[in-house]
């Protein structure tokens, strides 16, 4: 099934609303066309001195059109809001089931943001593409009837009409699809260049590279603009062609009137004016469709990837102990990709504090993913409290292991709701105790609404270091015997990172700790340090 069809299938959950929306929309369109045609007819009759039709009819059709348009808008939006909620909940559930590890730990926030943008793109699919297209199809018989009354040859006008309503949008869709990859690549390049300039600001200043970095960003921006300009040019050209075709059709209808029925011609011309006005937006819809197709493919793929590690049919009981051991574990992401590591063994005794250091990209985070059952070993075993984790349910296992990584997220919500994610049953005293442990109690108490202060966009802003400590408080609230940290301070300055670890040391005393880090800050309190290079663990001084 094509991804677009898969998305359309989701709409089927709101059949009544969508059907009504389509119906009202088509009725409104028909009323508009009839209104124009009828006006023309009345005028033409009046001009040739024929019988004067009752203009009251006109007022009725006019009123009906206005009312129908209102109904179309209200029902259409009701329908689309429902469909939009369905799409988002479906997407969320699918991603939660399938790819928490793949998306949350490996992919950057950027890729996720793009997915969300993709979902937004799909919102336009129904009202802006599907409904107008149905309208164009509905117009066909109406045009046939009107044009035939004028003159048999007038049916020729259907050619430019179909050209505008179907062929041009199809071309636009193809152009947009071809452009989407180019524009996406340029956008990613721009983002990397801007991040480099700001992340590496110290180096940039010291090497007087402000001008060079700015030039680099501008070069990437120029690539993006070039891709967008190309698509705009194509879209503009197609719109102009559609406009010329439409007006050509109208002129043809007028000229054919000299051969046929003049009154019919006047009515036909006004009907065509309304009909072409209704379909002249379709080339733009075609552009949107081209982008939506790519978006739908990505969204469906992300939502339906399926669980990465199969759950055991009958999960074993959770062991009472919490030591973790890797026994000759080998892992690679796919059969055609090199091993991240082979035959890796590692012991994390209960209560020990271990760090694994290594360059980014070497695969240290894979160790965390394996422990959390986000991926499974190709060979070897990972034991938790002596039991192979393949036999344990992922959820039960994750209740024992609190994870805090660079992707651990603070939600745009209250401080309370952020903390409750760690322990939904916690009372105020427990929340304050956790905040106390990470030395954030004073900061939160000073916020205007204490625990109920809003964090993030439109709310209280905490500094990067404070944010990480809040995330740590949530992790502590999970009350898990094992704490797993993967680059918890990536992106923050060194002083803030050291501050974080000083708090961390005190707050996690007595638990089993595994730190996965790029490099040490010097503030960590550890029993053993491993260096992860070339797929093996080497003891480093500790």
């Amino acid at each position, binding site marked *: 099934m094509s991804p677009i069809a898969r998305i359309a299938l989701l709409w089927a959950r709101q059949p009544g609303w969508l059907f009504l929306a389509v119906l009202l929309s088509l009725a409104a369109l028909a009323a508009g066309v009839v209104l124009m045609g009828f006006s023309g007819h*009345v*005028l033409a009759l*009046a*001009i040739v*001195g024929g019988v*004067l039709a009752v203009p009251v009819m006109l007022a009725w059709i006019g009123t009906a059109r206005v009312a129908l*348009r*209102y109904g179309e808008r*209200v029902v259409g939006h009701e329908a689309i*809001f429902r469909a*939009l*909620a369905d799409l988002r*909940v479906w997407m*969320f*559930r699918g*991603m*939660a*089931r399938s790819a928490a590890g793949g*998306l*949350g730990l490996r992919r950057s926030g950027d890729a996720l943001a793009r997915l*969300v943008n993709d979902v937004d793109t799909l919102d336009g699919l129904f009202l802006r593409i599907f409904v107008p297209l149905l309208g164009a199809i509905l117009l066909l018989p109406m045009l046939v009837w009107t044009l035939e009354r004028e003159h048999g040859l007038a049916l020729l006008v259907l050619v430019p009409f179909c050209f505008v309503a179907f062929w041009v949008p199809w071309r636009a869709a193809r152009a947009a699809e071809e452009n989407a990859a180019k524009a996406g690549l340029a956008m990613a390049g721009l983002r*990397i*260049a801007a991040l480099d*300039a*700001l992340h590496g*600001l*110290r180096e940039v*200043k*010291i*090497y*007087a590279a402000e001008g060079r*970095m*700015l030039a680099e960003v*501008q070069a990437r921006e120029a690539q993006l603009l070039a891709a*967008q*300009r190309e698509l*705009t*040019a194509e879209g503009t050209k197609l*719109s102009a062609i559609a*406009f*010329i075709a439409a007006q050509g059709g109208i002129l043809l209808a*007028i*000229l054919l009137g*000299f051969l046929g029925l003049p009154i019919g011609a006047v009515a036909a011309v006004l009907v065509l*004016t*309304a009909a072409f*006005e209704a379909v002249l937006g379709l080339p733009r819809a075609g552009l949107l469709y081209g982008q939506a197709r790519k978006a739908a493919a990505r969204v469906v793929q992300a939502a339906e990837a399926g669980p990465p590690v199969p759950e055991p049919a009958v999960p074993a009981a959770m062991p009472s102990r919490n030591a973790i051991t890797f026994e000759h574990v080998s892992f690679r992401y796919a059969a055609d990709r090199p091993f991240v590591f082979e035959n890796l063994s590692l012991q994390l005794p209960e209560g020990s504090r271990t760090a694994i*250091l290594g360059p980014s990209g070497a695969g240290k985070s894979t160790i965390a993913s394996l422990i*959390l059952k986000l991926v499974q070993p190709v060979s070897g075993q990972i034991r938790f409290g002596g039991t192979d984790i393949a036999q344990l349910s992922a959820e039960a296992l994750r209740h024992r292991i609190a994870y805090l990584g660079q992707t*651990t*997220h603070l939600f*745009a919500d209250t401080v309370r709701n952020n903390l409750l*994610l760690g322990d939904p049953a916690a009372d105020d005293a427990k929340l304050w105790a956790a905040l106390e442990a990470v030395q954030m109690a004073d900061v939160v108490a000073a916020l205007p609404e204490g625990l109920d202060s809003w964090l993030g966009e439109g709310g209280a802003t905490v500094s990067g270091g404070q944010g990480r400590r809040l995330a740590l408080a*949530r992790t502590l609230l*999970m009350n898990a015997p094992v704490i797993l940290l993967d680059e918890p301070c990536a*992106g923050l300055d*060194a002083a803030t990172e*050291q501050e974080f670890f000083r708090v961390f040391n005190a707050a996690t005393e007595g638990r089993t700790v595994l730190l996965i880090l790029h490099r040490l*800050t010097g503030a960590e309190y550890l029993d053993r*340090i491993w260096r992860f290079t070339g797929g093996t663990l080497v003891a480093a001084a500790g």
Partner: protein
Amino acid sequence: MSRAPNPWIKAEQKSGFNAARLSLFLAGAGIACGVIQAGAAARLLAALLRVQPAGLTAWGSALVFVLAVLARAWLQIQAERRNFELGAAARRRLRGKVLSVLMALGPAGLRGRHSAELAATAVDRVEVMDGFHARWVPATGLAIIGPGLVGLVALLTDWRAGLILVIAGLFVPFAMAVAGIGAGIAAKKQFLAMTRLQVRFMDRIRGISTIVLAGRAEGEAKALAAAAKELRERTMRVLRMAFLSSTALDLAAAAALVLIVIRFAPVLRGAHELAPTALFLVLLVPEFFAPLRGFAAVYGDRMAVEAVAEEFQALPDDPPAVPPVHIRSVAAHGVTLAFEHVTFAWDETRPVLENLSFKVGRGEMLLLTGASGTGKSTIIDLILGFLAPQAGRISINGAMLEDLVPAARTRMLGWIGQKPVIFAGTIEENIRFANPAAGEDELQDAIRNAHLEELIASLPQGLKTPLGEGGFGVSGGQAQRIAIARAFLKDAPLLLLDEPTSHLDPAVEQDILESLKHLAAGRTVVLATHSSQAMDFAKTIGAKRIDLDALRYASWRGVVA
């Protein structure tokens, strides 16, 4: 529109309309062509109805029709291309400004802010401004010009019908105002509601791994559905009212058409000369209302700006470049650095340095020791000019730091920190970052001196191996070597080393220190460290030492004034 516009948006609006003049002229000319086209069509139709003689006039009208259509298509293309360029120019301008300001603020000015968040302003928030400049501004201008032009023509052609059209046009904003639900307010509410759902969804998707690992996925899915439902109900209450304003537009358009037909229908009989006029005015109705519809369609673009304006407004203007009192440059080789009674505090409760004085002669090394937070990095940042002291003098070869031309100061300073940043680009580009104009010999020397040859030889693409985002990941020691190669390539006389080995394990540290020794030769060096290996290394070179712990202790005891 009854909201107090944010001054930043107001300024953008003004510059937007100024820039859009030509594009508005083109679009206005396009509408004029539309009027001419309607006139030609009316004449043709009149000829068709045998109330005007057919023949030559009819063919002439057909020709005018065709020319008007072609001209209009051309004008449309030109206007749309210009609109795109308006958006592109605005984005270029804003992005350049945002980045310049952020870079001018420097690492000290941006302390505690996440680089990804700042990059989002420079990239995504700037993109949002495209809709404002490329669509909203032209559509708004045209919503005034278009109906104005068409209404005027209608009035001049037949004042009664023209009046109907103009009154219908004025009814649109009037109806919105009387209903007390200005399109602005309603659309704003709708937009904000939509934005909130999008923000929530985006937020939950970004944090999806956090939710799953906390075992809260199903709860959040239900919460998301409930939020969407609540939002839909609230939004629809607003929208049912808001759509009345769009309905006012539909009503005005339909009423104008019907009234014009009614105005002409009775008088046409026996007054054939009125026929083309009547047809012309009927054809003008859609022309009159199209720009108003276009305006309604771009309201989202205008609203989106409200959401990002705050972020832009919060950016400081370019920090004023304080003109140096007496611009000086100093001899580039052999540098003496002096601190005289330097005091620095983050704020009143957090003093860092008090009355610090020291001097490092040319070619000497100063070792700064002390626990984290005692001010080692602060001293380095003061020398780099990222921070300014509250009191005291910092001088290089006797010239006050702030009196030096920034470019000259930068040229004298080399720096290696804890975690060098590796940029997206090849190894070669990362090293040349220090000096893009360096010759091949200099590059090879820097590579050799930093002991990078082995790494480069081991990589299949050698110097052209891509690093950084999506590229080859280098280890801490390798990254530090690249930083050392940069420092060699820059060849600055004053070298600042800020905990250069604190992230390395001892074996690698010893190796890096060897390279640093080589780099330090002949330069004035400030080394901040708490690593014992690095301290031993400094001693072998014969460095002076300032222990900031002892200093602080001394100042508490009143030993140092």
